[in-house]
Structure formats: structure tokens, C-alpha cells
């Protein structure tokens, strides 16, 4: 090859190389869980890009469940991959991320603006691991039309719920209509399935990092669900049902009651829903004599410790967790706000009127155990719930297994 030509090309290339960085945008890559409105988050990011010339933000999504996303992020982060700058994390993960050192902490951030539950969830050993993206909790969805038809008030206890489903089933005579749909598959939702009636008895699983397992309360909790299967309140194959299956079944009109997160509401009111306009939502029932308990959900924004754009990424997360964005996501994406005042915002209430009652639920919802080894805790509970519902294990043996295995993990 002609040497003079090569030299000229090299010189040109090096000139280009030295010029381009001055014009280049900072490219941030942000991981958004695919079930939480990435297209609405995109609108928020577009606004941010317009206000901050020189910053471009690309969304990455992957996996359709919290577990699948956690596995993907575990692989990326344990490889110290700098590709992702900002990560959306399930509320159960900050402790693990703090222990592994995968996120950069937000020092000096005033957390008092957020709902207290999320201050607690994101603060590990005095360090702010992530900032809250949106709140969530489990709710009881019910068919308003069916309850009105049979003159039933929304149930306050699980016993009332069972009686209501019996009455509806006798009246409707529709074998396709289930009483209650909840999560029995061995997925994250099944952890809450176990904890709802367990908490309702006034018991906690972990206090101050120590296991406070109450065997009798656990047996009662597991027995509640197993009895629901045996008496036909729930269907026989409930052990196959995951969170989104519950959503689909209720949306198709084949369940009178459903336990689900807040995201289901938008789907129930959507064009594909046969129950649009017929859905009520309320607090989850209590176990007779106990308190009404819900499971705290919600997702957080963390900045990857391996990101090469720390400052820009933190600035963007500050924006994403601002009150304005929280209100925007509530009104446009039906994601529960992390600011108490946003629940009274007129724009939000116009779009999702039931959020007015949701604040109380979020404020009283309980957190799943906070531990870096949460994945193991979760696995123990959800596989046991699944085994009990499938009839492989009795509630008594199930409770003993959970206790023995949790003791090993949380020793």
C-alpha cells in the first residue's frame, strides 16, 4: 500500500479522534424493568434530554419478572460491567447491592421528602444505597358488579371473603368463575402470599436482623391458603399461577377477587379488559381478629458503582426521583408516588381517583425481610408455599421447613 496515503489517513483519523469528544454527548444507559412503563419513563427522559443538551439517555429492558431481572443484573454487576449507569431495583434488593458494593451511595441527600418506608428501604448501615422511583403495595381487587348484585360489602377479613365467594359461586353457577386468584407459583409474589396472613396475626419474620419466626402463625398462614384450594375458593392449580396470570384471569372476568400489585389497575381499565368499570380496589383483608396487612413493593433507582459517568448519572437520578416526576408517573403511568403530597395532587386524582385511598395502604404496608441474603430467604418461602399449595407438603411440615432453612440463612 502507498505509504504516503496511509500516513495521510492516519493523520486524518487522529485529528478526527481528537475533535469528536468535544462534540460527543454523554451517553447514559438506564435499566428499566419492562413491567413498569418504560415507554412513560421514556417521555420523562425526553424532557430531561431537552433540558440538558449534551446528555443522551438510552433505556435498556430485559426479563419480565423481578427474578429474571435480578439474575440479569447479578451477571452484569458481578462482571463489573460499566455498560449500565443507572439501574431500577426492586425494593427488596438494596441490602444486597450495598453488601456487594454495586451502587454508589448518595451522600448528604435529604431523604425526609420521601415516604418513610422508602427512606428505610434505601438506607443500609447509614448509607443511602438508592433513591425511590415509585411506591407499591398489594391490594384486593374485587368485582364491584358481582358484590352489588349479591349485596356483599368488600370483605374486611379472609373469612368474609371466603363466604362472599361461596355466595357468588352459588348464585352465578359459572364453573369458569373462580373465587379468588392469588400467587401460588414459586415466584417472588408467593413470598407475599405467605407473609400477608402471617403479618395479619401481628407477627414479624425478622426484627433487628434477627429471625423472629412464629411457627404457629406460619402454620395458620399456610393453612389459610391450602384451605382456600381445598374448599374451592381458589382453583386447584393455583400452584401454577404467577402475578401476571392473576392479572390476566381477573381481567378476563374469570375471578371475583384478586390479590395483586397496583400495576394491575391500569390493565383492568384498559381496552382489552372485559371488567373495565366493574372493578373495585381496597385494603387486603385480615385474618379474623388480626390487623389488615399488605406487602410493601416499589422500585428504586441506583447508580452503578462501575459507571464511568457518576456525576451525570446521579444528577439524572435526582431528577427521576423528584416530586414532579413522581406526579407525572402517577398521572401517566399509574405508578404510586413516593411523596405523600402527590396522593392529593389534583392531576393525579383526576387520572387515578383511587390513589386517594392508596396512601394509607402504602403507609401501613410491611417490608419483606431486609437482608443481603434476601434471595435465599425468598427462595425458601416461595418454594415452600408452592409445595404446600400443590399438596406435596403439609402446612405443618412447610412451616417447620421454612423455620429450619431460615435459621441457617439468618444465623
Amino acid at each position, binding site marked *: 500500500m502507498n505509504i504516503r496515503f496511509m500516513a495521510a489517513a492516519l493523520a486524518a483519523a487522529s485529528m478526527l479522534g481528537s475533535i469528536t469528544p468535544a462534540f460527543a454527548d454523554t451517553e447514559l444507559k438506564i435499566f428499566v424493568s419492562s413491567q413498569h412503563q418504560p415507554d412513560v419513563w421514556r417521555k420523562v427522559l425526553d424532557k430531561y434530554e431537552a433540558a440538558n443538551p449534551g446528555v443522551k439517555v438510552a433505556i435498556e429492558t430485559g426479563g419480565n419478572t423481578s427474578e429474571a431481572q435480578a439474575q440479569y443484573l447479578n451477571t452484569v454487576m458481578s462482571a463489573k460491567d460499566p455498560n449500565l449507569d443507572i439501574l431500577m431495583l426492586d425494593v427488596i434488593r438494596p441490602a444486597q447491592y450495598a453488601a456487594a458494593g454495586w451502587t454508589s451511595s448518595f451522600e448528604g441527600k435529604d431523604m425526609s421528602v420521601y415516604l418513610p418506608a422508602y427512606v428505610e428501604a434505601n438506607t443500609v448501615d447509614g448509607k443511602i444505597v438508592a433513591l425511590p422511583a415509585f411506591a407499591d403495595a398489594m391490594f384486593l381487587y374485587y368485582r364491584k358488579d358481582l358484590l352489588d348484585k349479591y349485596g356483599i360489602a368488600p370483605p374486611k377479613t379472609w373469612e368474609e371473603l371466603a363466604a362472599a365467594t361461596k355466595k357468588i359461586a352459588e348464585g352465578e353457577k359459572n364453573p369458569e368463575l373462580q373465587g379468588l386468584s392469588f400467587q401460588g407459583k414459586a415466584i417472588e409474589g408467593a413470598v407475599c402470599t405467605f407473609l400477608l396472613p402471617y403479618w395479619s396475626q401481628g407477627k414479624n419474620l425478622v426484627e433487628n436482623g434477627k429471625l423472629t419466626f412464629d411457627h404457629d402463625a406460619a402454620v395458620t398462614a399456610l393453612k389459610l391458603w391450602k384451605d382456600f384450594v381445598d374448599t374451592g375458593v381458589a382453583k*386447584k392449580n393455583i400452584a401454577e399461577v404467577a402475578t401476571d396470570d392473576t392479572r390476566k384471569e381477573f381481567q378476563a372476568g374469570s375471578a371475583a377477587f384478586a390479590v395483586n400489585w397496583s400495576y394491575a389497575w391500569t390493565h383492568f381499565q384498559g381496552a382489552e379488559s372485559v371488567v373495565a368499570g366493574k372493578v373495585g380496589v381496597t385494603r387486603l383483608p385480615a385474618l379474623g381478629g388480626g390487623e389488615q396487612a399488605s406487602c410493601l413493593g416499589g422500585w428504586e433507582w441506583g447508580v452503578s458503582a462501575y459507571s464511568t459517568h457518576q456525576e451525570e448519572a446521579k444528577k439524572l437520578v435526582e431528577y427521576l426521583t423528584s416530586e414532579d416526576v413522581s406526579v407525572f408517573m402517577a398521572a401517566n403511568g399509574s405508578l404510586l408516588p413516593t411523596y405523600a403530597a402527590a396522593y392529593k395532587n389534583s392531576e393525579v386524582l383526576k387520572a387515578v381517583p383511587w390513589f386517594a385511598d392508596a396512601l394509607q395502604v402504602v403507609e401501613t404496608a410491611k417490608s419483606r425481610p431486609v437482608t443481603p441474603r434476601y434471595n435465599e430467604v425468598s427462595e425458601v418461602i416461595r418454594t415452600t408455599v408452592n409445595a404446600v399449595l400443590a399438596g406435596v407438603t403439609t402446612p405443618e411440615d412447610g412451616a417447620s421447613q421454612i423455620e429450619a432453612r431460615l435459621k441457617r440463612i439468618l444465623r
Partner: protein
Amino acid sequence: MTNTSTLIAARPADRGPPAWTRWLDLGDRALAVVLLAPAAILLALIIVYPVLRLGYTSFFSLSLTSGLPGEFVGLENYSLMLEDPVFWETTWNTVLITLITVPGALLAGLALALLANLPFGVQWPVRLSLLIPWALPLSFAGLIFAWFFHSEYGVVNDVLNRMGFEGIIWFNSPNWAFAAICLTIIWKTSSFMALIILAGLQTIPRSLYEAADVDGAGRIRQFFEITLPLLKPSIVVALIFRTITALQTFDIPYMMTGGGPGTSTATLAMYIHQNTVSFLDLGYGSALAVVMFALSMCVTAVYLRAIRTKE
């Protein structure tokens, strides 16, 4: 070789070969080393090093969720394993899957290969239908069969209902779930067995069967006296591959049941994946992986020994 020798012959006798061609004069042994080196180095990098590293890690308590640096603990991970009921359950499930699906796939594969070897006028549809299950990614097969066996929407229960039987909630019972998984694995892997056996079938000379016909041997006798003995090498090769992949069974149960109900259909490979990818307990996960590696090595050694004694 012929090219180089003619080149050398054509060169004027007074001038030796240029210095840079000296390597051509290496002895056979040295040449072999040079030629094998790239493959050996590649294998060392992608197989030997990771395996040694795995063994090394298995002696450490290394969990990313602990926030602590790795600590040498000797054989502690292995002693934990012996007391871990889930390790024993998943290992037993893996052995059971191997014992059921390897012979199952062999029989099904042999039948398919004999079928494909029949003198049909048009052979490509048969061969193509043999190739498709083999070419399908394992996780796809798992997803597809998970739907087939779904208690409400699945085609299997629909057929059962039409035949007058009550549908089964397949994934609600450890035994039915296990049966569904084994059927899927046999369906998925028998075509691989069939492809190897078919290749073996085509090397058997037709003249042997003609001679047997003349001698008055029937079809069944011909199969046991000619076909099966001559197929033995192909069958052993197919069995080695199938057994090793059976010991590493992951995708199909992962997609179909996720190990459920409870942990009754989880395999050792799934347990390794869970410990390393979900729990981030790299030390314990490595120790489990070492056990699986040792298991695979043992099985291979048994097969290799079986072939050698045959010769």
C-alpha cells in the same frame, strides 16, 4: 508435501533454502507440536484454566452478598454439601433423569433412525422432521412443552378430556411433573441419537443383508445379528454425548417447572445456577460444580473403558 519437495528439487543445488523456510525442516515430532500448539493453548484457556479456577474457588468462602473478601476454608463447602438436603435431592433427581431419559432417547432414536433408513421414495421430509427437534433451542422446547402440559390451556389435557379421561394438573404433583419433563427431554434428544445412529446405519454394507437373505435369516434375526452389532460404535458415541448432557440437564426443567412443586424436579445444574447466579455464593456454587464435573468425568471414563475392552 509434494509441492514443497518439487520446489526444493527445482532449486539450484549450490544455494541452500532461505533461512525463513528453516521451520519447514522440523522433524515430525516438532512439527506435530507446532501444529497442535494453537488448539492446545486455546483449550487450556477456555477449558483447563476455568476448571482449575473452579476447583480453587471451591475451597473459599466467597459470597458477594456477605460484603466480605473471600476466605480460604478448605473443604468446608464440601462438608456443607453433604448435610444439605437440597443437594441430595437435586443430585438424585439428576441421576433419575439420566437413568430414564438416556435409555428412553436411545430406544426412540433407534426406532426413528430405522424408520428414516427405510427406502422411502422421498426421504427429505423424514430427515427434516428428525432435524427440527434437534435444532430447536432447549429452552424453547421447555416453553413449548410447558404449554402442552398446562392443566387448563394445554393440548395434552385436551386430548385426555376428549378421550374421556380427567385432565391432570401436571405441575402440581412431583411424579407427573417429573414424567412431563422426562417425556420432553426424550422428545428433544431422541433426534440427536437418531442422527448419529442413522449415520451408522448407512455404513452397513447392503451385501450383508443380501447374504443373510440367501442364508434364510428373517428380518428380526438380521436386526439382532447384523444391524445391532455393527451399530454398537455409533450407539456408544451417542450414549456418551447423551449421558453427559443428561447429567447437565438444566433448560427443560427450568422452563417447565422451575424445579417445582417445591424442589421436587430441580436438577443439580439448576441448583448450581441458583447458588451462583441468584444467591451469589460463588464458593458453594463452585463446590457443587466440581461435583458435577467429577460425575461427568466418571461416566465418560466408564464408557471409554467399555469401548476399549470391546476392541
